[in-house]
């Protein structure tokens, strides 16, 4: 019985190490990137219509 518990703990630890998700980072980086991208073209559009 005690052996089984030890095995489960080891398994859980391994699972946690594997679970290094960058999903939140990706979402935020793309959010900032999209903001810069849209702003750049908005400013360029202003330049074009004022010519």
């Amino acid at each position: 019985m005690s052996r089984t518990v030890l095995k489960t703990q080891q398994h859980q630890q391994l699972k946690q190490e594997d679970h290094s998700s960058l999903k939140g980072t990706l979402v935020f980086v793309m959010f900032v990137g999209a903001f810069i991208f849209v702003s750049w073209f908005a400013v360029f559009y202003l330049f074009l219509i004022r010519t």
Partner: protein
Amino acid sequence: MHLHKYEKIWLTFGIGSLVLFLAVLGVAAFAFGQQPPSHMASVDSQNLEDTVFAEPGLDQINEDTYRARIVALTYGYSPDTIEIPAGSTVIFEVTSQDVVHSFTIPGTNVNMMITPGHVNMTEHTFTEPGEYLVICNEYCGTGHHYMQMKIEVTP
């Protein structure tokens, strides 16, 4: 080198955006000739009367193109009014006889710094008739906020 799948996505996005921005600017500069107002032209600001700025004003170059030579000074422009027909393209050549000014027509891309000793140039096509205000947006002294001239575009 191992890169996470998401890292590849944002690196591609970032580098791709940079390449796109530079390509747009490159095409605008080299194919359409857009450039900053500084043309590296210089003039002796102490003796403007011995230069082409001795008689500032408007010259007609061809049917619908004009050249406006303007001197910025504390606190105004010489001449203080120019009149052109709608549809005209005006090439502005502006210099300062004293301190740093600017030459700004709100609502257009004409917005340049005017530095003594240099001739800054830009051009604009006035398609809409009306009165255009030119202002100085570079603080030049106590009368800075009175500094202005007018461009009258007649139909």
